[in-house]
């Protein structure tokens, strides 16, 4: 069963320039889908559209975002916010800026449970301690009393992961959750996210520009270029025989497991111009 269904999602800047071009994608319950593409392809924009946090400059001009079959875009703002808060969570990219520097860590994990979902404070605190234990943080009580600046980047990302899973969401959107971390920490965090996702059986939309990560975490993937879906397939097929020339080029531009230092080919200009033509044709069709 598909938990998140995005249909023909179009997002434009206020001046009409499209950022997302009729994007459609699905994430099934308990499934991990990777969303890959180069910088600026619109990966984060998709996550923001689902979470209802599009920047002011951008406007959602068409399409549907179904959560468990219910179209979020037809809900009144307050109901939509409540639904997203209860069912979806974000693991942000930069753990150094995603925690409020003037609040203790504990309340930043429990606040959604208490304020939005109406839990008792004690109950929420017990739950937070339990989650911190799950993300392998020692002495959760002490950590919950700390301020973010007292903790390392890796610690903070663990806390944000714990916080994301706190309300047992059905869908988690992780937007390049390891990019801001040290390489050694990256692997641990990636492993942790997978571990948590499996334990809680949560659907996960994993945004990354690193194809090397994709095979380690996800079952399916969507390739994005210039806000347009280029290819959508399962991971095995993708790595065995990518369907689109751009995907093949992207794959060639990624270091291989077996040969991490092997020579890399940047995506050739000829292929870029080929996809650009596709984008232009798409835009022309939209205008008509």
């Amino acid at each position: 069963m598909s938990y998140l269904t995005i249909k023909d999602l179009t997002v434009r800047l206020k001046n009409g320039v499209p950022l997302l071009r009729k994007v459609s994608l699905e994430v099934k319950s308990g499934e991990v889908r990777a969303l890959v593409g180069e910088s600026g392809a619109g990966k984060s924009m998709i996550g923001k559209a689902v979470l209802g946090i599009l920047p002011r400059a951008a406007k959602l001009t068409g399409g549907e975002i179904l959560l468990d079959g219910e179209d979020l875009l037809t809900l009144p703002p307050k109901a939509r916010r409540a639904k997203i808060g209860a069912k979806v969570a974000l693991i942000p990219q930069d753990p150094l800026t995603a925690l409020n520097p003037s609040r203790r860590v504990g309340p930043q994990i429990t606040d959604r449970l208490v304020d939005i979902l109406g839990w008792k404070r004690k109950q929420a605190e017990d739950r937070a301690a339990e989650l911190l234990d799950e993300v392998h943080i020692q002495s959760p009580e002490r950590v919950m009393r700390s301020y973010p600046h007292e903790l390392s980047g890796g610690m903070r990302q663990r806390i944000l992961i714990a916080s994301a899973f706190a309300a047992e969401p059905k869908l988690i959107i992780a937007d390049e959750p390891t990019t801001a971390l040290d390489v050694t920490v990256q692997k641990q965090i990636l492993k942790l996210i997978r571990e948590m996702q499996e334990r809680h059986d949560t659907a996960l939309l994993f945004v990354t520009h690193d194809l090397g990560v994709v095979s380690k975490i996800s079952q399916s993937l969507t390739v994005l270029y210039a806000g347009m879906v280029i290819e959508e397939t399962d991971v095995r097929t993708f790595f065995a025989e990518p369907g689109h020339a751009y995907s093949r080029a992207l794959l060639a531009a990624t270091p291989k497991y077996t040969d991490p230092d092997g020579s890399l080919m940047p995506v050739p200009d000829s292929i870029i111009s080929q996809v650009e033509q596709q984008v232009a044709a798409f835009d022309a069709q939209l205008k008509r």
Partner: protein
Amino acid sequence: MQIVRTLLTRLATTIITLLGAAIIVFVVIRVVPGNPIAMMLPPGATEADIARLEALYGLDKSIFEQFLIWIGNVLQGDFGTSITTRQPVFDLVIGRLPATLELSVMALLIAIVVGGSAALTATLYRGTKVEGGIDVAGGVALSLPDFLWGLALILVLGVLWPLFHISGRVSPSLGFEFNTDFYLIEALVRFRFDVVLDLLGHMFLPALALAIPLAAIILQLLKQSLKECMHDDYITLARTKGYSETSIIARDALPNAILPTLTLVGVQFTFLIGGTVIIERLFSYEGLGNMAIDAVINRDLPLIQGIVLVFALLFTLVNLLVDMTYAALNPRLRHA
């Protein structure tokens, strides 16, 4: 350890500030022409009369000697005797200080409430006509200094629509006997709300005049910091949790945005206290500032010195208070 060192440095700078202020005033009021003794005596007084009185007040000695004597006395708690009223300067100043404190704190509260809520509202409605309107109001508020606002308020809310008192601190017709000089606090504590109302009616316009420019400054700075905070990642994360814009601004943005404003309010509050001198005169409000003007007009040297010392002490206390609040509000400083 850190705290002890900070406090010691603080104490040292406070003493240097006070000493500096004392020296400057001491010298200036003696260099400026105008003889206090001549002003006290009837027109027919002889040179000998003047000399006798000058000797009595120690004014025949050199400025340096006078200063040493004065400082020596101050250190023993003797601030001298007012030349015009012949009362101890200490009693006069302590008697008037509460009136000025009540007025300035009231003005500060008005400025914080008005400026703060305007900044929060403008942030909530950023990019709309509401924000534009608030910006315009802030600009207008800053276009006049406090005493001109005082005049404008007297004309509009005192004369045209006489809604508030424009003179004095309390209506004598109330016949209320105060036991302290903190009238407002005393009336509140004694549950005499008729007196409270009367006091507020007197205090409102001068306090508002002092508050208007400060409110605009708070508005501008706080709004700017709030708007910057609204782009931060933890704000976005709070949005995804289901919080409304209002609670995000109040709970997540405000505590992070408030520190720069707090520092500025501290500095501006000392300016505001300085502003009470003219505002109290304008509203015939019996505070320290009003007394200071009389003291200057009469060349009442001991009284001027006493008042200046108290103002200087107030300023340093305000700065100390701001620093302490800053440290208390900023967890990064607290644990540093």
